[in-house]
């Protein structure tokens, strides 16, 4: 009986560590998905010459679908006035990543503490030719 009780306690402790292994991989996959979405967004921004309402909405939708976070929690900033071919465009995307610690309840970590913001702050060169007259 004593062995059973101690074994049960040990398994509970072990599970908390094993869960973290899978949770870390999920977090990494969310980061990679956000990166890929931002890369697609960057290609559109290059052609548009700046961040527009359309490409911003598309990025929010992509990231929300890939990471499961709410669209309004994603922050996007940067160059919003069209710049011509060869000029620099800046964009900064902040994505909230939640559930970093797998067994947060076991360790006493609240959901407000169990998160971080992944920031992508980059530059690209415009390919916009001004043909649409903006």
């Amino acid at each position, binding site marked *: 009986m004593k062995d059973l009780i101690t074994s049960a306690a040990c398994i509970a402790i072990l599970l908390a560590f094993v869960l973290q292994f899978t949770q870390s991989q999920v977090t990494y996959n969310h980061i990679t998905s956000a990166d890929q979405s931002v890369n697609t967004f960057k290609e559109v921004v290059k052609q548009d010459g700046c961040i527009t309402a359309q490409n911003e909405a598309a990025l929010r939708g992509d990231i929300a679908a890939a990471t499961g976070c709410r669209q309004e929690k994603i922050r996007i900033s940067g160059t919003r006035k069209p710049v011509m*071919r060869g000029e620099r465009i800046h964009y900064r995307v902040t994505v909230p990543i939640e559930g970093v610690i797998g067994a947060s309840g076991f360790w006493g970590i609240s959901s407000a503490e169990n998160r971080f913001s992944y920031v992508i702050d*980059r530059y690209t060169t415009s390919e916009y*030719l001004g043909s649409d007259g903006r």
Partner: protein
Amino acid sequence: MKNMIITIGMIIFIMTMTGMQYRCNSVLHRKQDMKFAADEAAATAALCIDREAFGQGIIKIRRAEAERAARDMAWLNLGKESGKLEIRFTEGVRPTVTVIITEGKLRAESEYEYVPY
């Protein structure tokens, strides 16, 4: 006592594996960042063409300007000058710019050519 020893052993093993996983993911992420920076640097450099030659139907990249633009863009996106950046040019009907960024054992390479519209 036996249970405790086995549990501690397993915890050490899992923590070692988690540490290796973190290290592996960090390296992959850094390589992705480097590839992105190399892509952007090469795309930026490929835009630095000689306008006068272009008017005569010849595409010629202005090397000094392209190299400066590539370096600026690469370090701007990577955050700091932590690696080595190499830029290669090829001449011809469609000249290309190749940017190679190396940081320790990591290497990212990107090749672009000027695309006229």
